[in-house]
């Protein structure tokens, strides 16, 4: 174990000499800063970090992280990362990706990586737009959105990204926001602590092509009315005066008001259980943002331990070696029926 003596690392240790090439005001800066301040706190030697990405503004991320980095091709980051993780399960592999990179061209690799539970931490920068290609709609753009490629509005409903990945049985699912630095760092640390795949949707503002996409959630005034923070074991209460809560009624969630004489109190409110054994629970939470009048949940929706693909695979190898001994090339070459020619 190299972790024996870890040099004390600081944020600066994770910054590179490359000038950051994002638009002034882009939400990506905040995410970069959060990651650069969380990594040193993880107690992992810097050389163990690998940051992989696809293509997109968000995918420029690795160039600005002073770790091992691989800026691959559009949508294929999850597969490249899987190859890295299988070969070296001990590495700390993070994937920076966008709503287009991860959910359009990369959708299949994403859900398969998550299904396999490869121990990769995904940062999905969701700005609901294709930034790098200058403003076409993405699989998370709202229905009817007018963009460069849809001057008359889109004709398709967006994915619910967290709903989709829960459908793929993702073992850790969370959401945070670029400008909520504290919450973001917190969430990243929880993702880092999780053994298997972690999918973190980060709501990010593209101030050039989709400015204000998350205004409702980030704008100081409205914020507390439109966001509910999920904290394990705590009730889903929100509102400037914490006077609103989410109640489970049969298979439906409902927003209720507290202490306005309707007799409802905190104990009527749904208490969050991020370890709920049934993914349907997290799935239900993921549906909230779609429902008018509901706040958007941020924090950890699901955290569930199950075998990691790379571990099962290396165990298979170790077991076979233990049982049959390490492979002998000479034996392999002369396997099966052989005969002598003199």
């Amino acid at each position, binding site marked *: 174990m190299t972790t024996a003596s870890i040099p004390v690392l600081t944020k600066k240790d994770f910054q*590179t000499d*490359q000038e950051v090439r994002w638009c002034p005001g882009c939400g990506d800066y905040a995410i970069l800063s959060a990651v650069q301040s969380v990594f040193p706190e993880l107690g992992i*030697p*810097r*050389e*163990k*970090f*690998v940051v*992989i990405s696809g*293509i997109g503004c968000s995918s420029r991320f*690795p*160039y600005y992280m*002073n*770790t*091992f*980095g*691989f*800026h*691959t*091709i559009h949508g*294929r980051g*999850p*597969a*490249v*990362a*899987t*190859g*890295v*993780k*299988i*070969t*070296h399960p*001990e*590495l700390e592999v993070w994937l920076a990706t966008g709503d287009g990179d991860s959910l359009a061209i990369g959708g*299949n*690799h994403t859900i*398969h990586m998550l299904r396999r539970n490869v121990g990769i931490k995904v940062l999905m920068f969701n700005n609901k737009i294709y930034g790098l290609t200058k403003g076409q709609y993405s699989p998370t753009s709202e229905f009817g959105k007018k963009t460069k490629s849809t001057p008359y509005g889109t004709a398709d409903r967006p994915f619910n990204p967290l709903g989709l990945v829960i459908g793929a049985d993702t073992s850790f699912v969370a959401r945070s926001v670029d400008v909520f630095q504290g919450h973001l760092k917190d969430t990243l640390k929880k993702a880092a602590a999780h053994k298997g795949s972690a999918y973190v949707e980060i709501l990010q503002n593209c101030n050039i092509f989709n400015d204000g996409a998350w205004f409702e959630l980030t704008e100081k005034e409205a914020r507390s009315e439109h966001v509910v923070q999920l904290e394990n074991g705590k009730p889903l209460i929100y509102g400037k005066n914490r006077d609103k809560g989410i109640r489970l009624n049969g298979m439906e969630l409902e927003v209720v008001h507290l202490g306005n004489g309707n007799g409802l109190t905190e104990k009527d409110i749904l208490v969050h259980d991020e370890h709920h054994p049934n993914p349907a629970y997290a799935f239900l939470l993921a549906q909230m943002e779609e429902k008018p009048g509901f706040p958007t949940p941020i924090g950890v929706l699901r955290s569930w331990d199950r075998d990691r693909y790379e571990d099962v*695979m290396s165990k*298979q*190898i170790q077991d*076979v*070696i233990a049982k*049959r*001994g*390490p*492979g002998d*090339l*000479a034996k*392999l*070459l*002369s*396997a*099966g*029926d*052989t*005969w*002598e*020619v*003199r």
Partner: protein
Amino acid sequence: MATITDPVVRAHKREVIEKAVLRFCGDSGDGMQITGSQFTNTVALYGNDLATFPDYPAEIRAPAGTLPGVSGFQIQFSSADVFTPGDAVDVLVAMNPAALRTNIKDLKPNGILIVNSDAFTDGDLRKADLTTNPLEDSSLDAYRLFPVGLERLTRTALQDLGLDAKSMDRCKNFFALGMCYWLYNRTMDLTYKWIEDKFKTKALLVEANKLAMRAGYNYCEATEAFQVSYEIPPAKLTPGTYRNLSGNQALAIGFVAASQKAGLPLFLGSYPITPASDILHELSMYKNFGVMTFQAEDEIAAITSAIGASYSGALALTTTSGPGMALKTEAMGLAVAVELPLVICDIQRGGPSTGLPTKTEQADLLQAMFGRNSEAPIPILAPSTPGDCFWVAVEACRIALKYMVPVIILSDGYLANGAEPWRIPKIDEIPGIKVKFATDPNGFHPYSRDPNTLARPWAIPGTLGLEHRIGGIEKQDVTGNINYEPLNHEKMVRLRAAKVEAVTQDIPDLVPAGDPDGDLLIVAWGSTYGAITAGMKTMRAKGHRIGHVHLRHLNPMARNLGELLGRYRHVLVPEMNLGQLSMLLRAKFLVDVQGYNKIQGQPFKQSEIEAKIEEILG
């Protein structure tokens, strides 16, 4: 359980001959592939040289008895060198009318024809679109016809075992196999052994199949159906220990050998596809060699996961066939841009598109050369025989690791499934492969270069102090930083090309087989080797001065090829495509080479090569 011993061989006429071509054909359900490979192993162990050609339909099982459902297995074995499975057949075993109909044309006049006469009911005939019964009309007069009631005889042999009819009929191919063993005076021991561990859990089936085979053998012995049996003495092969090996097996163990020689773990990222899947199956069994096999969700994930594995220090590999190859092209460009070692196997099949999944072809050469956006050169190697696949696998890995480049191997369905006796090399006959990971942070630059190979350093994640970034965007030489400057781009494009060109320093000069100069030079690649070698032999015997160079290295090519082309009056390039190598040679050397292009999903016949040479040299 009844103990089984070979019958005492009664005195009967035995003829010693040099070689024979035998073909089993029947329904996809009749177990022709098993029957054929059993016969092959027996013949191989006896010491004959041989070549085989399995040929089956794309469907798992087309409807029983129909023409598209016919599956065949052909073997040529001899006391002399064997280069092909043979053009025409000496002995044809046909399990039903459909098989008879589609295969009879290949049987030599007066050849031996063993037919399962129990499968010629009107219904069977109709399934084969036959209006009259060939066993009765005189259409088979040209052959030595042996109608045998395989079902009836097998059932009789197995009657005491209490098996149902269906199960008994399933043994009839072993009855036929037994007959062939008698016909060529071979022991059945090996197949007995095989049956025993194949059905180990099912004692009854073990006995049934053994009995059936023996019954077939005894049937010949008793009935003296054939007045004569044949003996083909062992071949005089290079001394050594031999095994019978198919092309896909050879690739698989070749890669394991390379990973052992290089001291690197082997990673295979693959998505199943005919005829490449067997490499995945084979390698997935070698866990004790630390082999990691990742069955990806598609071909793109297969190659990109391999690129990730290579990035982190594994000997990385991806295997596929034409359609999958097409899907990997963007990722190949990435491998070229980030200059990481990677081996890409394309087991070619008939196309375009889905095409002829189980048939062979050589039409992916130009895709391998040019099938990527922009200038993205990649070295290409091609094996010439099933056994050669082993050596090409090792060589491809060596080049990939030495020059830090992706390398493409072009095999094909014919090599993949065909088998030949292979001399097992001593470990130290296999070239060593040196690999050095970068470890020293002092003056480390991700795109600095080795002066001889132009290779960049391989600095894998986890190495203290070597943190760095790579990617598919154009980069500055040495530093690897993103760079859009015009002159840097041109420099990098030419560097990537020069790197591939540099491989020529490892390519030995070509030495033509046959005549060093004269009338005709045959230039070819891949699985056409056998037919050309055999065909050239006969034609040289007729006094023509012919040379043959078979290109293992298709990109770059051996240094002296251009000079060789000048030494002959004609240059002939036989290929199973519309002239792909021809085009490369014409462009590179401005020589008016003639293509001989057969694109039928079938390998060249020796006679076709001979006829072509005849046509040119008159």
